[in-house]
């Protein structure tokens, strides 16, 4: 309940600044428009393979960087003002996470529509399941992002986060499928979590709703959600948060 009150507030604030919504999705959109046509003709795969990857890229960039907002809240005393109220600590976190997830939903829907315009032809239930998986990913990433933002030195959060996200994105096979990778790269990729999310999304988009890829990726994402919210809440409870 409190989380909804918080989320409503943040959505109101976000909607005042719609340009930020667009800019948050700009990178995957550029990949779709300027890289997608190449990808589709390269033999690496169809739009049905690329768009799931771009959705994960969007999730990583949009939700993964969301902790940046809290850096300012901390600096201006907003966080203490919220923490001195009786609101549950988990609600203080989830309110933000809900907002980030909603933002991602809008961005992802836009990206998918654009994908259809270019040549994406995935079954609707598969797209819906894929979208759901990306939203779950956003919940976990955004929670962890806040936890990190509250833990790291304030000035380091943005550079560290953007540096960490790039290799994770490349290793996930979001931009080019890992089936093309040499053996060692494939092994390294399998050690990173988002690879499984990307493969589950691709399975959904291909209509393989109960394939091994779909199940493993969903499992990894759910585990991430639990871990992310637990870590985030802990950090919000921490006295210095």
């Amino acid at each position, binding site marked *: 309940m*409190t989380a909804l*009150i*918080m989320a409503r*507030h943040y959505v*109101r*604030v976000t909607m005042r600044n719609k340009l930020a919504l667009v800019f948050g999705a700009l990178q995957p959109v550029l990949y779709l428009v300027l890289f997608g046509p190449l990808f589709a003709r390269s033999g690496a795969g169809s739009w049905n393979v690329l768009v799931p990857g771009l959705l994960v890229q969007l999730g990583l960039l949009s939700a993964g960087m969301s902790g940046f907002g809290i850096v*300012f*809240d901390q600096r*201006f*005393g*907003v966080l*203490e*003002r*919220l*923490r*001195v*109220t*009786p*609101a549950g600590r988990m609600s203080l976190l989830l309110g933000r996470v809900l907002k980030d997830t909603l933002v991602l939903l809008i961005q992802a829907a836009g990206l998918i529509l654009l994908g259809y315009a270019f040549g994406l032809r995935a079954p609707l239930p598969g797209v819906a399941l894929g979208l759901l998986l990306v939203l779950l990913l956003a919940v976990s990433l955004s929670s962890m992002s806040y936890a990190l933002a509250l833990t790291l030195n304030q000035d380091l959060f943005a550079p560290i986060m953007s540096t960490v996200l790039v290799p994770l994105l490349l290793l996930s096979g979001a931009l080019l499928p890992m089936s093309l990778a040499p053996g060692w790269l494939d092994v390294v990729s399998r050690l990173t979590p988002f690879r499984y999310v990307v493969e589950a999304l691709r399975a959904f988009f291909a209509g393989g709703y109960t394939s091994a890829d779909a199940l493993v990726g969903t499992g990894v994402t759910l585990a991430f959600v639990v871990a992310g919210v637990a870590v985030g809440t802990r950090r919000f409870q921490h*006295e*210095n948060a």
Partner: protein
Amino acid sequence: MIHATGLTRTFTTKTATVDAVRGVDLDVSPGEIVGFLGPNGAGKTTTLRMLTTLLRPSGGTATVAGHDLTTEPTEVRRRIGYVPQGGSVGPAALIGEELELQARLYGLGLPAARERVTELLDRLGLTALAARPAASLSGGQRRRVDIAMGLVHRPGLLFLDEPTTGLDPRGRADLWDDIRRLRAESGLTVFLSTHYLDEADALCDRVLIIDAGRIVSEGEPEALKSGIGPGATLDDVFLAVTGRALREEAAA
């Protein structure tokens, strides 16, 4: 209203450990206005942040507004208001929206929250500024917003950390009047830190003087002054108990 014994807080940084508060005992009765005086770095903010559940004490216990600080922090939070030293709204935030959020986090429904915000804005002379971002307000206006945040749920106990810093003389006098009026109307208990001895003198029933993390003196302003000698000011009291003049510290 507040009963604390042996409150301590040690900060550990990479380079050093800081004993910010070293065994503070406090008792504040309902309806009292108590001033917390001390030079920069004495431990005022640290003590207030412990009493408002924002910082876990390294040692000691406290009951605040009838509930134990460490075992029932949520109950304490329901009953207290806190106006921090460093502000409470981001530059882009619209103050009306932020106040509404704050009211709702204290459990008010949307209509009640809106009504309360309207009333508070009016009372603090902020009505015309409700739709403005905080960055566009003057320092004094922003300070009044912070104070509104602390009062939004009509707490019985209000913590104010240097509430009048940045206010002009008129703003200070107005705030003092507001505090006195709230006390008269609703029996509000107030615990406020300040560098201004005249503020303590004019407003507080009792002052505590803290220096280097310890309470070094306490009493009614009149009693403290007469303890030093005829015609003494709180400055003289301060000088006598800490060996330093507060003015120099505050200026440093």
